[in-house]
Structures are given as C-alpha cells and as structure tokens.
C-alpha cells in the first residue's frame, strides 16, 4: 500500500551509494523483500519505473526483487514452519508461542553501476 513511499526511500539511498562510489549510472538494483513484509512487488515495480524516469542517474534502471519466504519458529516444540500457510498457531503442537524468524525483510542487497 505504501510502495510509492518505499520507492522514494530506496532511490534516495541508492543515489547516495552511487555518489559515494563515483558511479555515473545505476543499471540495476537488487532488493530482498520478505514474503510477509506488506510490500507488493508488482506495485513496487510500477512506482519504480515512474520514479526512475525522473532521475538522470537511474533512468531505465532495472529492479530485481528476491522474495524471502516467511518462516515462523515455535518456542514450545522448537519446530519451524511456513508462516503464510499456517499463521501464528504452530501446526505441530498448536502452541501460540511462536515468532517470525524471517520474512519481514526490506533490504537493498546490491546495486550494479557503471
């Protein structure tokens, strides 16, 4: 829902990193987005094209998104399971004492520059 705001932040960070590395052009940005991070890649890509077209450094820049699967850990039976499939309740022992161990990532992994 807030993909536009997120794109603004990514572009700002990438521009800073590119400047620190004396790059003249950013060709590609690779993100790692968790499955339950509330960011929808499809919308992110849509906002991305628009925002990059306004920046000389980033015009036409490709956006690659790696999805990190969401995994939850159960404190009681110490099993891990898929969050999207089973949610908060452990499918092995029925416990509610569970927490997300991965799947909420919003990270800029790497950028490709010339």
């Amino acid at each position, binding site marked *: 829902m807030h993909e536009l705001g997120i794109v603004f932040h990514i572009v700002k*960070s990438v521009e800073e990193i590119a400047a620190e590395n004396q790059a003249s052009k950013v060709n590609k940005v690779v993100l790692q987005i968790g499955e339950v991070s*509330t960011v929808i890649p499809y919308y992110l890509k849509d906002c991305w094209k628009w925002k990059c077209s306004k920046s000389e450094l980033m015009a036409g820049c490709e956006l690659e998104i790696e999805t990190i699967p969401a995994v939850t850990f159960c404190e009681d039976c110490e099993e891990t399971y898929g969050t999207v499939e089973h949610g908060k309740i452990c499918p092995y022992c029925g416990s509610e004492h569970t927490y997300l161990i991965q799947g909420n990532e919003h990270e800029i992994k790497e950028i*490709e520059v010339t």
Partner: protein
Amino acid sequence: MKDYKIIEVKRSIFEDNDADARKLREELAAEGTYLLNLMSSPGAGKTTTLKRTISMLKDEMNIGIMEADIDSDVDARAISETGVRTIQIHTGGMCHLDADMTRQGIREFGTKELDFVVLENVGNLVCPAEFDTGSTKNAMILSVPEGDDKPLKYPLMFSICDVVLINKCDTLSVFDDFSEEAVEERIHKLNPKAEVIYVSAKTGEGFDKWIGWIRKELKEYKN
C-alpha cells in the same frame, strides 16, 4: 571487458528514514518539544479527541498541532478554531508521513516555544506504522464501533504504540459485542508495555486519565 561493478549494499530500505527520525528526535529533545504521533483509522475520532485535549491543556502549556492529510484542510480548520497553532501538511497522495516530511513540517512551524506538538497522521492503520516519524512517542485511537479484533488485523500498529486510546466508550452499551477484556489481552500480547485508556471524546469520560498520561510524559521528558 567488464565495464560495470556490483556494489554490495545490505542496507534496510528504512535506514535513511530511521536516520532522519533519530536526528529529528535529538533536535526536538534539545528544544524541549515533545512530539506525539497520533494515528488511527479514518473516523476513529482523532480530531474530536484533539479538540477536547487542547481545551483541557492549553492554559498550562504551549500546544501545536500538525495535521497530515492527503489533500484537504478540513481537520486543520476544525483545530484552528481552538486557538492553538496549527499547520496543515499535505502528503501529496502518500498514505503516511515519514521523518523527512515531519521534519520539514516542524521547521516550517517553528517549535522552539512549543512544549507539546501533536502530529495527526493520515487516517490509516497500515502504512503509518512502518515509518518512524521521529516523534517522541506514538499514540493510537481505536474506537469501539471498529471492533475488538483490530489488534489481530493490524498487529504492527498496535506493537509500536506507547498508548492506545479506546474512544467512543459511551457506545459500549450499543456495541455490546466489544469485549474490553479481549481487546486488552490482544493489545498486551503484541505490546506488553502499551497503556490502554478508555475515553469518550464526545462526553469527556476518561479524559482525566488521558490528560494525566500527557502531563506525566511531559514532566519526565523535560527532566
């Protein structure tokens, strides 16, 4: 020949916002201005709650209100009738306010003589929770007609709030399926430290407790 290079970044998308937020918090602390980020869904009663809060506190402290809306000044007009300093921030279509936008608003406002500033965030329980605005503390309003299941549906919002006001408590007799016990349990499971206060912005019920919370917060902040 390879004419490009890959730079490994490994940086959170929110890192630059978090840095802006920290900076704003430091600036506000140096000025002694307490900034409360107030969030809720549309229609939960943010503006009515603010109006009553202002009327009870304006003789003892300098208050400022920042109204964030996508594109209107309905709330700013309503608040400015109370006589306190008000500024309208337009997010230009964005569903939330980030630290940089808040900082621009604060600078435009000039908060040096203000003790207590409330940022009325965009009415939304999803996006504002993701972005640290640089506020001193976060508050949210959940109104009784919205239902006691909201903490289950918007867990991030409830997990970042220092205080949750349950507004429209005068309607509890009508919305009799709203369980106070269930809502408190759900909130505290996500956020054991969150303070839950029942109020009615319409009748004034519970406001002594809410005003008490603000007074205590400001006292601790100034020390």
